[in-house]
């Protein structure tokens, strides 16, 4: 009933106000880059050309349907050929197409040709997460679907009304939230180098009008110069397997000062992580970090309780209870449906593998970051 009310009000809103049209997402976003605005203009131009042609063609068609019907006694004419008419309706569309092709070509060349970028970010698609590297700044991190979205998705399936409200509360950010946001400075020309580690993904941020395939073994590039500070969301736009719908993109466009502060903070954290990887960790620390990482990276297929689902059970598995070498190999390098997790840091891998070997009643050995380093 509530859904029905929403639907009715949506329909009412659709016909009643232009503001509501925007709210219900009827049209392409204008975006926050010059290119995205050009694309929007192009889209609207072609749309209106289609509307005008449609009005003429359908107008003639419906006039004919109404006026030239047998029931009103209309007698059929017998003309059936005119070279002149055919000539006109071949020629006029060609002229219209040329008129559309000129701005389209100009925009396309703007998009594809970039002389100089202020900074570069490498984007790597993984099944099913994004990795961002800032090669100059030395920053690298993984961006996963936020735990809140995962919880809401599962809870929704269980159908309890309070949990349903929890999902509704997430609103427009449901499935469009990640744990680590990509952060970029405003008014800066950013070159994105886009590639993949496994299958083809596609990195799409509608507000930037950047959508580029991430091909394994090849690097594509795209660029954007965001002009408005804010948070922008996108999604993978190429079917990449089971969790294709669950690898969103969130970009924070921040002021240049905030960006500098963020870079310093990230660099500090990276140094601390590198230091930690050389240390001997306690089992409790490994287990605590491992549980978080397991739920982010592994539970989608192996389930939170390790009972297995799309992937095999970890609970009681011979791999998790046996020698650590085989376990390290499969997590680092992947096998068949199991993706490689070599992009995780040594401490993270040690933690998640230890968790798999010691949780769910498993009795495998503890794995230290140094074991991961030597297994790579």
């Amino acid at each position, binding site marked *: 009933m509530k*859904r029905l009310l929403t639907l009715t009000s949506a329909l009412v809103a659709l016909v009643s106000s232009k503001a509501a049209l925007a709210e*219900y997402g*009827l*049209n*392409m976003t204008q975006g926050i880059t010059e290119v995205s605005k050009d*694309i929007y203009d*192009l*889209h609207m131009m*072609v*749309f209106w050309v*289609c509307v005008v042609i*449609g009005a003429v*063609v*359908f107008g003639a*068609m419906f006039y*004919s349907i109404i006026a030239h*019907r*047998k029931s009103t006694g*209309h007698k*059929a*004419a*017998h003309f*059936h*050929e005119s070279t002149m008419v055919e000539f006109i309706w071949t020629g006029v569309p060609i002229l219209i*197409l040329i008129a*559309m*092709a000129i701005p389209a*070509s100009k*925009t*396309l*060349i703007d*998009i*594809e040709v970039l002389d100089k970028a202020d900074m570069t970010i490498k984007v790597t698609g993984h099944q099913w997460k994004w990795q961002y590297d800032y090669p100059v700044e030395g920053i690298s991190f993984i961006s996963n679907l936020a735990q809140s979205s995962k919880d809401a*998705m599962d809870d*929704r*399936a269980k159908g309890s009304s309070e949990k349903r409200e929890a*999902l509704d509360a997430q*609103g*427009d950010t449901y*499935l469009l939230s990640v744990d680590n946001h990509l952060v970029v400075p405003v008014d800066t020309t950013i070159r994105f180098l886009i590639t993949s580690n*496994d*299958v083809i993904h*596609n990195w799409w941020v509608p507000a930037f009008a*950047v*959508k*580029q*395939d991430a*091909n*394994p*073994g*090849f690097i*594509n590039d795209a660029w954007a110069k965001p002009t408005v500070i804010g948070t922008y969301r996108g999604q993978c*736009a190429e*079917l990449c397997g*089971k*969790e*294709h*719908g*669950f690898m969103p993109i969130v970009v924070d466009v921040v002021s240049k000062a905030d960006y500098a502060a963020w870079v310093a903070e990230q660099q500090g954290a990276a140094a601390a992580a590198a230091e930690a990887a050389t240390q001997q960790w306690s089992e409790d620390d490994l287990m605590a970090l491992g549980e978080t990482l397991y739920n982010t990276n592994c539970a989608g297929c192996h389930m939170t309780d390790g009972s297995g*689902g799309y992937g095999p059970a970890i609970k009681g598995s011979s791999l998790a209870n046996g020698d650590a070498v085989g376990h390290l190999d499969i997590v680092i390098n992947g096998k068949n449906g199991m993706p490689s997790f070599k992009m995780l840091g040594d401490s993270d891998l040690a933690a998640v593998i230890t968790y798999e070997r010691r949780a769910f009643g498993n009795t495998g050995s503890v794995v230290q970051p140094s074991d991961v380093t030597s297994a790579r």
Partner: protein
Amino acid sequence: MSYTAAHDDHHGPEKGLLRWVKTTNHKDIGSLYMWFAFTMLLIGGAFAMGIRAELLQPGLQLMDPQFFNQLTTMHGLIMVFGAIMPAFVGLGNWLIPMMVGAPDMALPRMNNWSFWILPFAGGILLSTFFMEGGAPAFGWTFYAPLSTTFAPDSTDFFIFAVHLLGFSSIMGAINIIATVLNMRAPEMRLMDMPLFVWTWLITSFLLIGAMPVLAGAVTMMLTDRNFGTAFFDAAGGGDPVMFQHIFWFFGHPEVYIMILPAFGVVSHIIPTFARKPLFGYSSMVYATASIAFLSYIVWAHHMFLTGMPVAGELYFMYATMLIAVPTGVKVFNWVATMWKGSMTFEAPMLWALSFVFLFTIGGFSGLMLGIAPADIQYHDTYFVVAHFHYVLVTGALWSIIAATFYWLPKWCGKMYNEKLAKVHFWWAMISVNVLFFPQHFLGLAGMPRRIPDYSLQFADFNFISSIGAFSFGLSFIMLTYIVVDCIRNGKPAAARPWESAKGLEWTLGSPAEYHSFNTPPSRAVILEESQHS
């Protein structure tokens, strides 16, 4: 010729079920194709219902994402290879010999074979659902390496099924070319042929050109998966983007394989019910040939985002836009055929008019998609889903339904229930738009295709779309009833049940005799029945 006539008297169809297994008769085989296609349409439609049921509300309610991907994949494959293509081959089998004044198809035994491969290919494809790891889940476009290194074991069965479907299509195409070129009544010139025959002849050449390319693509997949080659694996020196080039070199002609015969069907129905000859017969033929030619040189417009150089993108954008010209000519010709006609609106005409209207909407979104910069925002969103369903459902499928109502009296000698057919038309017409029109908005608002769950701003239009889908799905129960009711209880139909229908098929009885023309029609009859008289 009197020998043949006497011969016919004691050689009707064989009795019992074996008739359908052993038959070499174009009408029997045409019916087999049509019923097979209809069965597959219902199966593929059931998959679509599953997809729309999951998408009815946000959250994962009914299935896990992997099964959702299996459904989208199999929905596409079954609809393209199991429903639309066989339905057109069925129409071609039934109609082409009658339209060109021939007794049967040129290669009747091969005709039997090309049909009977299909149930096995379809069966193999569907059986993958029950295999370990499930059915193929990489989309009907099966991009490598998701379909090679990362695919379930059942993919090899999928490859085999695609090979079989390809054999069947190529044999069907050879048969139609041989029939049109060799079995045509001696007095019928090429430019006397009805447009359905023309469009199918051109489609046959597209099939012969495109299907072997698909066979090549899946064979490379097979060796990549099983024999250590690396055609599509960058780690071995291959290129995953090459897969897409090969696939779309097949795939783009393929979409015209599914729409050119539809153009033919509509070019028969509109003149009949407008009581006026088809406008611009020869320009229709040239436009069809132009579309077929262009279809081979635009394939990479499906790949604007793969990282093509800008010169390539510009070329494919221009070539793609060019397709709007001959397609536009066709639409203008249909409207000019209606203009100053004396129209009535029996079911076939309703479907044909609705085809012109809705297919043109699909054409407009196609033009928008062809604009390469804008395609950045449209690509792989629901805007694309809306576009190709407007051209394939309200285009190709619409024409098949139109053709069924138009020629059903000829096929079974009985008339369908006009009142029910009109109710069914409006039901399908409204629900299909409720189903697909909101998907334009979803795509523009940023919803990617092939996702089992979505953010809440997409919830309302998905809900509307799903309601439309269930309603549209139910309309096929009514279609089944109307057709079965016609075959069983319909009133006897006249040889020419539509007063101003033209075409040699109407000079035969209703139902048409088991062997169509034992003596070829005369020049006078051919001219009398031609579309440009």
